[in-house]
C-alpha cells in the first residue's frame, strides 16, 4: 500500500478526514510527530537584530543618495563608461600569462616538489629522514617538506601536532599557520590547530618560537609556550617533561574548552558538543585511554554534566 507523497503535509495542515488520519497512523506515530512539532513551535530561526539591520539600510541609503537623482539605479551601463573600455594590449597579457606560468612551473618543478604525509583520525605515523631525524605525527596531522632541499635547508610545514627528534645538522625550521619554530636543540613537540593558536613544548635542547608578528622567545628543556590569537604568551614550566599524547594523556594549560574538545575528538572516535561553554578555560591532564573517564574528569574539574547519546557527548554547565 503506497502512501501519497503529499499526505504528511496535508495532515500537518489539518486537512485530513478522521478516516484518512486513522490509516496514516498505521504508518507513522502521529502523536509523537505532533509532539515534536509542538515543541518546535517554541523555537525560532535566528536572525540579525532589527536595529542593526535598520542602521545598515540608513548607511546604504546615504551612499546612494547622490546617485539617485542622476541615473536609474537598476541600469549600470558599462559600455557607455569610457574609462572601462579595455586597452588592446590587455588581450595579449591574458593570452601570455598562463603560458608564462606553465613554463615557470616546469622549470622549477623539482625545486618546489613537496612530499606530503598525513594522518587520519585516531591514526599515528612516524617518518624517518635520511639524516636520522624522525617526526611522529599525531592524529589528523599533515606535514609537507621538500626532500630534494634537505641537504641545504630543512623546512617542514605543519598542520596539526607532531613530535620532532632532530638530528644535528643544518638549520631546521617548522612553519605553521600560527607561528614558526626554529630548532636549536633536538627534541620538541608542536601542536598547531589553526591560525590563532599554537603550543610548543621543548624536551631537550632549545627552540626558538616566533609568532606571525615575528615576536620570538627561546624555550629550553621542560618549558612550553602558547601562541593565542597571534600573540606569543609567557614561558611556562612543564609539569611532566614527556610527550603527552604518546604517553596516552593530554595536558592543557589555560586552554579554551573549544580547543580542548577539538583536540580530544582527534583521539576518540566521537563528537563533543558544549554549546555556550566554548570559551571557558581548562588546566589539567586528561587521559586518552577511555572516553568516559576523560569526559568525567573534565566535567568534575569544570563543574559540568555530560551525557552520551550514540556517537556524541553533550556537556552542560551544572552551576
Amino acid at each position, binding site marked *: 500500500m503506497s502512501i501519497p*507523497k503529499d499526505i504528511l503535509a496535508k495532515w500537518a495542515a489539518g486537512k485530513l478526514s478522521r478516516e484518512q488520519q486513522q490509516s496514516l497512523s498505521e504508518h507513522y506515530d502521529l502523536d509523537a510527530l505532533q509532539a515534536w512539532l509542538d515543541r518546535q513551535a517554541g523555537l525560532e530561526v535566528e*536572525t540579525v537584530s532589527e536595529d542593526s539591520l535598520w542602521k545598515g539600510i540608513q548607511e546604504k541609503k546615504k551612499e546612494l543618495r547622490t546617485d539617485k537623482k542622476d541615473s536609474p539605479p537598476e541600469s549600470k551601463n558599462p559600455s557607455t563608461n569610457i574609462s572601462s573600455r579595455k586597452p588592446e594590449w590587455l588581450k595579449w597579457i591574458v593570452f601570455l600569462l598562463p603560458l608564462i606560468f606553465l613554463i615557470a612551473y616546469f622549470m622549477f618543478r623539482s625545486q618546489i616538489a613537496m612530499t606530503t604525509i598525513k594522518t587520519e583520525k585516531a591514526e599515528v605515523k612516524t617518518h624517518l629522514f635520511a639524516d636520522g631525524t624522525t617526526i611522529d605525527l599525531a592524529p589528523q596531522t599533515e606535514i609537507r617538506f621538500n626532500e630534494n632541499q634537505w641537504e641545504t635547508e630543512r623546512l617542514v610545514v605543519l598542520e596539526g601536532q607532531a613530535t620532532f627528534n632532530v638530528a644535528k645538522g643544518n638549520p631546521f625550521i617548522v612553519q605553521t599557520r600560527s607561528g614558526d619554530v626554529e630548532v636549536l636543540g633536538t627534541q620538541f613537540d608542536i601542536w598547531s590547530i589553526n591560525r590563532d593558536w599554537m603550543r610548543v613544548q621543548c624536551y631537550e635542547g632549545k627552540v626558538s618560537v616566533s609568532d606571525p608578528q615575528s615576536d620570538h622567545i627561546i624555550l629550553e628543556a621542560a618549558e612550553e609556550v602558547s601562541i593565542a590569537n597571534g600573540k606569543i604568551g609567557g614561558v611556562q614550566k612543564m609539569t611532566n617533561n614527556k610527550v603527552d599524547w604518546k604517553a596516552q594523556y593530554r595536558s592543557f594549560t589555560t586552554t579554551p574548552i573549544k580547543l580542548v574538545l577539538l583536540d580530544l575528538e582527534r583521539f576518540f572516535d566521537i563528537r563533543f558538543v558544549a554549546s555556550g561553554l566554548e570559551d571557558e578555560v581548562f588546566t589539567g591532564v586528561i587521559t586518552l585511554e577511555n572516553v568516559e573517564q576523560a569526559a568525567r574528569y573534565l566535567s568534575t574539574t569544570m563543574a559540568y554534566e555530560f551525557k552520551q547519546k550514540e556517537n556524541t557527548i553533550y556537556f552542560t554547565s551544572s552551576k
Partner: protein
Amino acid sequence: MSVCAEAVFKDVFDRCQKPLQVFLQARGMVMHKAADSVQDCFVKLWNNCTKVERDKAKSYLFTIASRLHIDEYRKAEVRLKYRRGLSPMVVKEDGQYKLEEQEFKYKLEQTINNMTDKNRAVFLLNRFEKKTYKEIAESLDISVKAVEKRMSAALKRLYQENIFQKK
C-alpha cells in the same frame, strides 16, 4: 501615502524584515549574508519608492529577494533559538531537563540543515514563518501540490531521523 515617506517606509520595514531574513535563510543563505541581502532589498525599494504602492511593497520586496543571486556554494547553517516569552522554564537544579532541551534544539538544527534546499525552504516558511501552503506556492512560484510534496518529504525526514526508533 507613498513608500517614500519615512514613516511608511519604516512601517514596511518593521513588518517585513524578519520574514525576509527567514525567507532567504530558508533558501540557503547564511544568517549574515541573508541580513545583508535584506538590506539591499530595502534600499532598492527606497530607490524605487515612487514606483511602488504601499500595499504592493511586501510582494515587491519578496520578488527582489527571490531574484537575488544566491551563492552557488551556499551551505545551510540554520540556527534556532527559543522564542522570547515562550522559552521553556529552565529549572536550574534539574540539569537533565536543560540537557534535553539543548539536545532537542541541536538535533532539530541538524535535521533541518540536512534537508534538501527545496524541502528546507518550505519547512521553514510553514513552520517558522507560519505561511500557508498557498502563500508559499506564490512566493516560490510553484504549485500548492509541489509545496505539499516538499513539506511531506521534510516531515518524513524529521520523523525518520528523530522519532522513528529502529530496534
